[in-house]
């Protein structure tokens, strides 16, 4: 088993943190993991991309070439990265932020950022909502392991809100 995932959007949306959390969960579950990212010099704005490779065997080239899964949190990211997907791959879009879905058969649209604002209270939870959806759609790690990883990484007073975000994303991907 070897799966390649790419999370894309703009700087500040948390696509790198989401990839790190998924990678941490997979590592805890005993899988080989390579997690990498590319971003511009800006702290906010500008294109941001993160990648996770999860495998049962040693991983050499650490970057994703033909993702089995792409998350796009902006229109620009969607237009740029859907083309690399394998033909059986899955494209997950933020429904509101990607108004014009690319022409890709296996596309899932979830109002990720809208759910974060309306259900959890802030757009900054969007990446954790997305992560919840990804856990369900890709079935690579268990929700419980991810929950533990989230709880360990976020500030203590935000654990509850983050767990809620994770759950909402997971439910939305039913």
């Amino acid at each position, binding site marked *: 088993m070897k799966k390649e995932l790419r999370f894309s959007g703009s700087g500040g949306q948390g696509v790198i943190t989401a990839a790190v959390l998924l990678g941490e969960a997979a590592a805890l579950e005993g899988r080989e993991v390579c997690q990498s990212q590319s971003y511009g010099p800006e702290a906010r704005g500008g294109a941001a991309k993160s990648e996770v490779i999860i495998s049962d065997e040693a991983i050499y*080239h650490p970057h994703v070439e033909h993702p089995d899964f792409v998350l796009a949190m902006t229109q620009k990211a969607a237009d740029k990265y859907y083309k690399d997907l394998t033909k059986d791959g899955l494209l997950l879009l933020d429904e509101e932020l990607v108004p014009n879905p690319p022409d890709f058969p296996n596309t899932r649209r979830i109002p990720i950022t809208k759910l974060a604002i309306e259900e959890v209270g802030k757009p900054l939870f969007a990446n954790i909502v997305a992560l919840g959806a990804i856990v369900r759609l890709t079935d690579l790690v268990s929700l419980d392991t991810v929950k533990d990883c989230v709880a360990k990484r976020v500030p203590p007073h935000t654990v509850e809100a983050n767990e809620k975000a994770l759950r909402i994303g997971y439910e939305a991907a039913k």
Partner: protein
Amino acid sequence: MSKARLMQGNEACAEGAIAAGVNFFAGYPITPSTEIAESMARLLPKKGGTFLQMEDEIASFGAVLGASLAGAKAMDATSGPGFSLKQELIGYGACAEIPCVLVDVQRVGPSTGQPTAPSQGDIMQVRWGTHGDHPVIALSPWSVRETFDLTVRAVNYSERFRTPVILLMDEMVGHLRERVELPDSVEIYPRRHPHQTRAEGYEPYNPDPDGVPDTADFGQGYHIHVTGLIHDGTGFPSGSPTVTRDDIRRLHEKISSVGEEIIHVEESFLEDAKYAVVAIGGTARTAYEAVREARAEGIPVGLLRLITVWPFADAALHRLAERVDGLLVAELSYGQLVREVERAVHGKTEVRLCGKYDMTSLTPAEILADIKRMAGRDA
């Protein structure tokens, strides 16, 4: 539960440094090395060590040299632009024989270049950046776990040879997170200390039989003098041609005399290979994948990975060149490693370059295409 966890290359560097006994870090943050400083700031005080963020890159390495002379195991980390600034003090460290480790997590240059993008364009600067005749030890890891191991090795070599050692990382490995399990303890080379008194004739820069002096630390009770001028055994400047010649020769020979012991390479699929790829750091991972794919297509190709970049693996390359029909050097630059490979093989085999300098890493497909061209197959 296993101790395996997801860790970044830069974090593993900090963990390795602390495991090896580094108790002083001075630095000035710069992408893509900043997480090393961040990790040291988090970890070192808990171990009773000192973390200093200095006002700039030059001051950082100055603080490291000073701390080392006072007995600390000291490290600094930077990227290309900062590495350029530190050149004068690297030479000072080499001449005054001050043990320390300097990490260079390479990014695209020249100048401030592309701060967040991978490159391997500092290979020659590591060797020749500071002026004058001087030896250099530089090690280049290809994984997060190996970053830990080579940081330990870098610290140990710096103490053993009393010289600055460069850990030559690239963004691909520095920013990569992998599942790793770290060892509980590592072998540590202790600081060399005087085993004579002044009355017995001790001089701080008189070398041991291995060519390395047991220079006392400041504060140990010895009068010592440290200078970047060529000096004799007392540590004071000397105008003597003989002293100058002997000192420069000794600086080189204290390292070259151990021969291949410190020149580490890794061979993959080379037993029956007719062609080989040569690479270092993160690019070697891509090359490994390309070589595997080429093998699957029946091309007898292997990989030589240089773990020690300097001193250069002349002997390993020479041996390889005698038995293959071509070498492909894969690197993230306009072509630096390739020049050194060409020098080392003395024209015994054809050497080609697969270089890239567009902010992205090489892909296995790109290296595979060049392997096919080398092997005379249509790419």
